[in-house]
């Protein structure tokens, strides 16, 4: 899982465009023809830089995203849920592995990415800075956060960078299991006892704002954004993805006679777009910059896992090993 077009960085100030105009034209023609870009192909500096950021932050989101749900592995009710949740969280770790590898093909090592995650230099999806307080939270996460992730990932999988597309293809297959599992868990709570419905409704109320944040703030149409669209790095606007999500999932939520904490949420029959109260984008920025309920813990856990694993990795490392980068 993962989220957000918000991660795109401003272009380097005064970045000297050392990109050869002839090669740039060939590159753009290739993308216009719908061809994919492979790791050893020529690519513009800014294309490489933005992709590294995009894929790296996606990878971080997977590994950090394993934490709120991992919270409930030992407590999941019964074998069916326990095994499924363990497998789902394992998948998220697996997604991180696939995505770090994809980012590495662009020239940034896994070690550098992890350093940037732990130092706070590199971000991850905001939703994972919120706590999973009850079992119902995991059900809501597995259904709706993963649903958001699928909207995002299916969109990105049509992008131009081949290793990212290949990783996403595999990831999307696994996400569909996550989504089904999450929906199943939610439906069991929603159709269960009054107490089960109550914890579910409570979880939904708490997760709705982070879910609305998930796709990032409305994009302002910048020249920069247009270039990323033309290069097929960014495949859809944040708002379009949010609309797609609302369109697919709000009716399913309402069908279960659950409510959402936004009195203005409705689909406008004329524009066929969803209307809603803008979520608190100041909170979004605060949390992204470190001041959310779980930021500190998430990073501390990751840091500790790296530190405690250090002697293990050092013991395994063979002196003759060469640094290498995944092929594709």
């Amino acid at each position, binding site marked *: 899982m993962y989220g957000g077009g918000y991660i795109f960085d401003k272009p380097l100030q005064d970045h000297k465009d050392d990109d050869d105009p002839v090669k740039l034209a060939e590159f753009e023609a290739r993308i216009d023809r719908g061809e994919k870009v*492979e790791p050893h192909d020529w690519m513009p500096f800014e294309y490489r830089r933005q992709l590294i950021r995009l894929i790296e932050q996606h990878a971080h989101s997977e590994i950090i995203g394993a934490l709120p749900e991992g919270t409930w592995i030992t407590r999941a009710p019964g074998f069916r849920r326990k095994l499924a949740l363990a497998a789902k969280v394992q998948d998220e770790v697996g997604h991180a592995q696939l995505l770090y590898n994809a980012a590495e093909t662009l020239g940034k090592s896994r*070690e550098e990415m992890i350093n940037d995650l732990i130092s706070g230099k590199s971000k991850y999806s905001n939703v994972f800075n919120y706590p999973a307080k009850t079992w119902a939270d995991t059900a809501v996460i597995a259904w709706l956060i993963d649903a958001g992730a699928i909207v995002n990932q299916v969109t990105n999988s049509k992008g131009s960078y081949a290793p990212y597309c290949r990783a996403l293809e595999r990831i999307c297959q696994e996400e569909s299991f996550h989504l089904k599992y999450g929906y199943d868990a939610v439906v069991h709570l929603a159709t269960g006892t009054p107490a089960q419905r109550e914890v579910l409704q409570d979880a939904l109320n708490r997760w709705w704002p982070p879910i609305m944040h998930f796709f990032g703030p409305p994009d302002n149409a910048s020249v920069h954004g247009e270039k990323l669209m033309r290069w097929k790095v960014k495949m859809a606007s944040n708002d379009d993805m949010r609309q797609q999500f609302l369109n697919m999932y709000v009716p399913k939520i309402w069908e279960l006679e659950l409510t959402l904490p936004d009195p203005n949420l409705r689909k406008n029959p004329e524009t066929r777009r969803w209307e809603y109260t803008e979520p608190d984008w100041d909170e979004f920025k605060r949390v992204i910059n470190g001041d959310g309920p779980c930021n500190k813990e998430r990073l*501390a*856990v990751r840091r500790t896992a790296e530190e405690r694993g250090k002697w293990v990795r050092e013991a*395994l490392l*063979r002196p003759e090993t060469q640094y290498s980068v995944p092929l594709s």
Partner: protein
Amino acid sequence: MSTIKSLDPRVTRFNIEEDDQSMQPLERRDYFETYEVFHQAKRGGRHTHVGSVHAPSPEMAFLFAKEQYGRRSTSTSIWVVRTSDIHTVGDEHSDMWENVPEKQYREAGFYKVRSRIEQFKKRHNDS
């Protein structure tokens, strides 16, 4: 220094120090080298490239690859090979593949004799 009391009982038991900033940055070879993974889904099928793993040895690369790439659906075999042992040439040579599709004399579809036979039969019957 106090340890984190988390909603996650696992994390609480992991005894994580709250404000420890002493971690040294990882170095480039911390995660070993990479191996490419080839997966066979059923006996008699091909081994297909499915991705890569970081591993300190071929044996560990196999252990990792089996679970990362073979834990779903069916698998009958996995191969791993050091990425650095794979040789290829880069995109600057992509033009060497360009004319291949034009050499149709190497393809079955190039050989069409039916109309010639029909003409022959027609001539033969006419005479």
